[in-house]
């Protein structure tokens, strides 16, 4: 590939040409990440080949091709969105943090109510006692095999570090709201590092919002979670963004013995979304739950891929992903479960079910099992079909209009993914949100389930 038509070189040039700007006020922690990222990027560009089975729009060279601006000079958002953002629903009562484009803004709510044993801070301001921990998470969590991981590391200038001290249970959810607000096309590198120390418990909710829906945006989000022995982490991710938003979401986690990790990802609207989950379970006796739903309409695209590596023994994992595709919506699900030689008595199950609600909708599913150990129980299944015509006629015969019957059946199809959510307030909210989405209500902040709403900044 020649240099001029290569989508990735612009980022390499950018970091090379702006070394001095990026160095300004940068902590050693991020300097190391930037340097490692830049050196991997040069090699990765040479080696890049798109996978043959990808949805073309989800190919990395396509996602990175537009001429996005990158905020390496760390210019804050024009309006002080972080200050005017607040959670409008008291029941959720979360510990709210905002990422304004790519810059972390702790809210007063968070700072005033930070529980004992919880640290939530910018990667630019990690307390000295946790610097080594944050550096280790950054290194372990680096996505070393992907060109996106290299770009993300090369451009990283901020991020969130969350640490839950050993045997500490954080009752309120830590809610991180990503807000995009820019007059010009922009790539926002976003990073979240979570360390749940031994025996701790925490819930994290990540929401994507866009305040300038017509502006092209690449949301380059990296999440890395380390779940120590006996710890429990629930992670929820809700995307409600615009058709001009492209999202490249890399979620990586490592689970130690007797830990529990619950991950739920919900695509309610967006443009092109590529979600990648990579979870390694070296510990014994751990439990992993992964679930997701996607309502894909218009010309939206949502692609989920999961790699779950069972390395320790006596572990259980459950996966359920459901997609409803309307109009010209396209979806993909790639699910791979790897059971290592040492992973005796693994009990792993994966389900992917999809409904095509229009003749022009498309879905590709490829579940895979790689088993290197005999004493395991593994199952996987993928189905793609249409709504049950007998059920539709039965409902119509009772007077329910066909469109409403379809909506009810689609919602019913999703119900087990939603009911799987143990975070009750979110579960109830998601039921309402999915119903609204299916009845064609526009997906914006005012209808968002998480009900954080921005207010116009006061003059």
């Amino acid at each position, binding site marked *: 590939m020649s240099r001029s038509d290569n989508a990735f070189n612009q980022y390499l040039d950018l970091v090379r040409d702006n070394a001095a700007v990026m160095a300004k006020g940068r902590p050693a922690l991020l300097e190391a990440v930037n340097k490692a990222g830049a050196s991997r990027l040069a090699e990765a560009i040479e080696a890049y080949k798109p996978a043959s089975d990808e949805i073309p729009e989800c190919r990395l060279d396509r996602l990175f091709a537009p001429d996005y601006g990158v905020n390496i000079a760390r210019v804050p958002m024009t309006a002080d969105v972080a200050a005017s953002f607040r959670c409008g629903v008291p029941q959720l009562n979360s510990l709210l943090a905002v990422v304004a484009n790519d810059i972390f803004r702790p809210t007063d709510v968070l700072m005033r109510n930070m529980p004992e044993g919880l640290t939530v801070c910018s990667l630019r301001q990690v307390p000295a006692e946790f610097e080594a921990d944050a550096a280790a998470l950054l290194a372990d969590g680096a996505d070393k095999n992907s060109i996106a991981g290299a770009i993300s590391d090369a451009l990283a200038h901020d991020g969130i570090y969350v640490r839950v001290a050993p045997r500490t249970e954080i009752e309120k959810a830590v809610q991180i709201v990503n807000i995009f607000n820019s007059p010009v096309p922009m790539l926002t590198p976003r990073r979240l590092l979570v360390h749940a120390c031994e025996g701790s418990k925490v819930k994290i909710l990540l929401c994507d919002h866009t305040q300038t829906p017509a502006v092209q945006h690449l949301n380059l989000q990296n999440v890395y979670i380390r779940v120590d022995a006996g710890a429990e982490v629930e992670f929820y991710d809700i995307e409600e963004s615009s058709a001009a938003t492209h999202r490249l979401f890399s979620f990586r986690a490592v689970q130690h013995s007797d830990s529990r990790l619950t991950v739920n990802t919900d695509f309610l609207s967006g443009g092109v979304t590529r979600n990648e989950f990579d979870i390694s379970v070296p510990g014994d006796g751990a439990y992993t739950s992964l679930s997701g739903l996607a309502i894909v309409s218009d010309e939206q695209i949502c692609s989920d891929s999961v790699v779950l590596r069972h390395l320790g023994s006596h572990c259980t994992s459950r996966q359920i992903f459901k997609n409803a595709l309307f109009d010209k919506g396209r979806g993909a699900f790639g699910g791979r479960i790897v059971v290592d030689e040492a992973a005796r008595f693994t009990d792993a199950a994966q389900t992917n079910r999809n409904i095509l609600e229009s003749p022009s909708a498309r879905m590709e599913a490829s579940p895979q099992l790689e088993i290197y150990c005999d004493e395991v129980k593994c199952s996987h299944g993928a189905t793609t079909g249409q709504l049950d015509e007998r059920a539709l*006629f039965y409902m*119509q*015969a009772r*007077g329910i209009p066909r469109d409403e019957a379809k909506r009810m059946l689609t919602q019913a*199809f999703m119900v087990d993914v939603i009911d799987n959510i143990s975070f009750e307030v979110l579960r109830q909210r998601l039921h309402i949100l999915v119903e609204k989405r299916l009845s064609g209500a526009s997906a914006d902040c005012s209808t968002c389930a998480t009900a954080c709403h921005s207010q116009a900044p006061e003059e």
Partner: protein
Amino acid sequence: MEDLLKVENLRAGIDGKEILRGINLTVRPGEVHAIMGPNGSGKSTLSGVLAGDPRFTVLGGSATLAGVDLLGLSPEDRSHEGLFLSFQYPVEIPGVTMVNFMRAAINAKRKYLGLEPMSAADFLKTMRQKRAVVELDNKLASRSVNEGFSGGEKKRNEIFQMAMLEPRVAILDETDSGLDIDALRIVAGGVNKLKTDQNATIVITHYQRLLDYIKPDFVHILYKGRIVHTGGPELALELEEKGYDWIKQEVDNEQI
């Protein structure tokens, strides 16, 4: 008296095969009609075609409900106009609760009639009253539609829905199949309680048994897609005694 349901020379088929070959049937308010006939005679096709089951194709003829052309309406609008079909095999709908299902049905009808949606309190009160008609357990209301219901519960649930929707014409398609004698008594009792001089019921059945509980005014015999005999309640008893062979012979001889 004005005709409630009028079916004239109705012809319909499935997958290119003609099953109904010219049905004529007139039902007036306050009447109970029984349609009997051997397997494959077209009984369920007739109920499906009247309700708008998309599996069937109408080939000719007409069907009107209180003067409104049924065949041109969607299944939901036929329901709103007052037609009710109790399914031979009620469909299970996992994930949709009976309460939500019924509320959607009631409010869709009210919208069609230009009425405001029913208030939550009124709706729950109506549910409670109508459940009593067929002694339907309250627990079933919070469960998914027909999911995990026994055969008897499914049929009682059909009559409960009929009670909720208050149709002008109800077609009960083999409502007695799969019912034990107690369930049959409850279901038939429910149907009788819902009978007024304004509405009408069409009972489709194989056996005379149900007609001991739901007394028909007219009995029609359907054979090879046509109503070949119409009589009073005594015709059902005659069938019970002699079977269908004499009817088949009579018709088949005529055709020769």
